[in-house]
């Protein structure tokens, strides 16, 4: 239960002063992401989607909180656990579902699978499953933006496990020397695959201090509080757009499902974390928490929440049908897009 004992110690909690329409937007967006992930995980068990998949259930607060704070032109890079970011940034739902089914209507035309998502029309540049690549990629796009004098920001989402890879520090240093407009969002969910923090980080580690050692200003936030994430992202983005260079955001959160695949750990008798720990974190569900806040602030009624939920369910049901009806890639197209 170590991961509980370190329940977020955010440097700045949510102010409670987010505009109503934004607060509602954050909630509805999370609801949609949650529903998509849960539906996909359920369908995944049918073994018709042939692509290793890392579900983000439980981590929606980070993706939605950050993406809602972005401007339309900003670009996002994400890692293997990418559905949340893809949808939060506005990626096509059909593109996601059809990609998992390996169809032509997939966002990568069935060539990439779950870990290679893209929707450039909304600035979701790409997800890539090799740890750390996305950090360098975002820094590179930020370099291009700065060269062009644009105010655009590049964002990289990556896990705390990725902070074990050296490329991350090379990228931090470069972004900092050159004061590049990049937001570095670390989703600290306490595990890399099944490895706990103890085997990977010296005790007493504060990831923010690593960023600061590269002269990057850094903030830690409760990743399961979408409002806190949103506000922290806004602060960071404001500093970036003011020319202060890269900013680092550590978001503590938790994944509910197994590392890769649709099951709960207990279903497979996995032992690297306890059921109690998982359930304690499920109590801290970011979606429920945001819903409670809407009710508390009087921004929605329970009936309203239910109605929104029906909407996302209906949308997803229709999209799944559409995805399954999408054509398979034709073998004759095997050699398209190599060069």
């Amino acid at each position, binding site marked *: 239960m170590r991961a509980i004992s370190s329940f977020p110690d955010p440097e700045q909690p949510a102010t409670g002063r987010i505009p109503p329409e934004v607060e509602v937007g954050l909630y509805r967006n999370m609801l949609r992401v949650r529903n998509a992930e849960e539906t996909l995980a359920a369908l995944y068990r049918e*073994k018709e989607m*042939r*692509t*290793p998949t890392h579900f983000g259930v439980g981590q929606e607060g980070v993706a939605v909180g950050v993406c809602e704070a972005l401007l339309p032109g900003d670009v996002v890079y994400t890692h293997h656990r990418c559905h949340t970011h893809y949808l939060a940034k506005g990626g096509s739902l059909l593109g996601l579902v059809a990609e998992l089914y*390996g*169809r032509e209507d*997939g966002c*990568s035309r*069935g*060539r*990439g*699978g779950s*870990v*290679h998502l893209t929707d450039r029309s909304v600035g979701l540049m790409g997800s*890539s*499953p*090799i*740890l750390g690549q996305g950090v360098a990629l975002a820094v590179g796009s930020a370099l291009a933006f700065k060269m062009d004098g644009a105010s655009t920001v590049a964002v990289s989402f990556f896990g705390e*496990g*990725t902070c*074990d*890879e*050296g490329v991350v520090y090379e990228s931090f240093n470069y972004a900092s020397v050159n004061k590049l407009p990049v937001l570095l969002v670390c989703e600290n969910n306490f595990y*890399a*695959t*099944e*490895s706990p923090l103890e*085997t*990977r980080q010296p005790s007493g580690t504060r990831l923010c201090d690593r960023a600061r050692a590269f002269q990057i200003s850094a903030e830690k936030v409760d990743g399961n509080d979408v409002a806190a994430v949103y506000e922290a992202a806004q602060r960071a983005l404001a500093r970036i757009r003011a020319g202060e260079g890269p900013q680092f955001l550590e978001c503590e959160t938790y994944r509910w499902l197994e590392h*890769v*695949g649709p099951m709960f750990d207990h279903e497979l008798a*996995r*032992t*690297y974390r306890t059921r109690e720990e998982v359930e304690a974190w499920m109590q801290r569900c970011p979606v429920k928490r945001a819903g409670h806040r809407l009710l508390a602030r009087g921004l929605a009624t329970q009936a309203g929440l239910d109605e929104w939920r029906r909407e996302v369910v209906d949308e997803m049901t229709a999209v799944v049908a559409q995805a399954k009806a999408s054509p*398979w*890639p*034709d*073998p004759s*197209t*095997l*050699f398209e897009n*190599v060069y």
Partner: protein
Amino acid sequence: MRNIKYSEALSEGLVQAMERDPGIFVTGIAVDYPSGIFGSTTEALRRFGPKRVFDAPAMENALTGIAIGAAAVGKRPVIVHPRNDFMFLAYDMMINLAAKWKYMYGGNAGSVPIVVRAVIGKGWGQGASHSQSLQSTLAHFPGLSVVMPAFPADAKGLTLAALTHGSPVVILEHRSLYDTTGPVPEEAVATPIGKAAVIREGTDITIVATSFMAYEALHAAQALADDGVSAEVVDVRSIRPLDEATILASVRKTGRLIVADTSWELCGFSSEVAALAAEKAFESLKAPVRRIALADCPAPVSHTLEKVFYPGATTIAKAALVMLGRRDSRLGEIDRADHFKGPY
């Protein structure tokens, strides 16, 4: 001899080596998980404990340097990559350092006999960066040994050989092999590094194959036999050093050569063996050599594309018939259904 699984054979080889050499330790992502690299490290952990079998952060580059630094002072580290594709991050350490260590210090700095195990993925949409097969790029460099056991006996035998070898060895293990079974001696019988095996004798044509393709080749040879063709199958086992003698002897006998590899053709192992035959068994060749390799594009995900991307037994058998000038054949679709569903 009892039959055991490939993963069990790997495990047994490792455990027997660790019993004899207390300097051996095993590390890498997931080696101490209950899943234990498809079961191949589980018994070692149980027997020797977490001091000798332990997890590592994702830091392929430094971890390899750390293994080399431990080997330099007398340890025999085994590092494991759950996907060989991650090993690109360690190429500097493997090629610029481990491969050259003994040579570039003139033998005066000793040797760094690390063992690097890495898994080749295939199928179930594992995609472009989780399914490559890196033997050719590593074997290009003198100083490394690169082996690819296809059968359980060699999984054990080459593990044992690697763990007494005097210089670095890379063992590439194909994901599709862990559950295959075969006869494996209980004793610690090493498979010599640098020796190929003729795994089926024949007279009409030689099929040289690597790793999983050795299964496909055997399957093809079986089907060809039904069709009146006698194919000899050579499981190359070691990519470097390459057992030129065994390959050339077979080619000289049959006069025909197909090479089936798990990777791409260009500057790959299939080209190597074809070149070898053209240079050193030219006079015996009765027909052009034939390379069988991955389609020349990155690995796609959708299974309609995977199906045409990967060559299989049918590809090999048909190539053999063409080479023999056969115009008709009883051969149908002989590829086996792919029932793999993970875990990856």
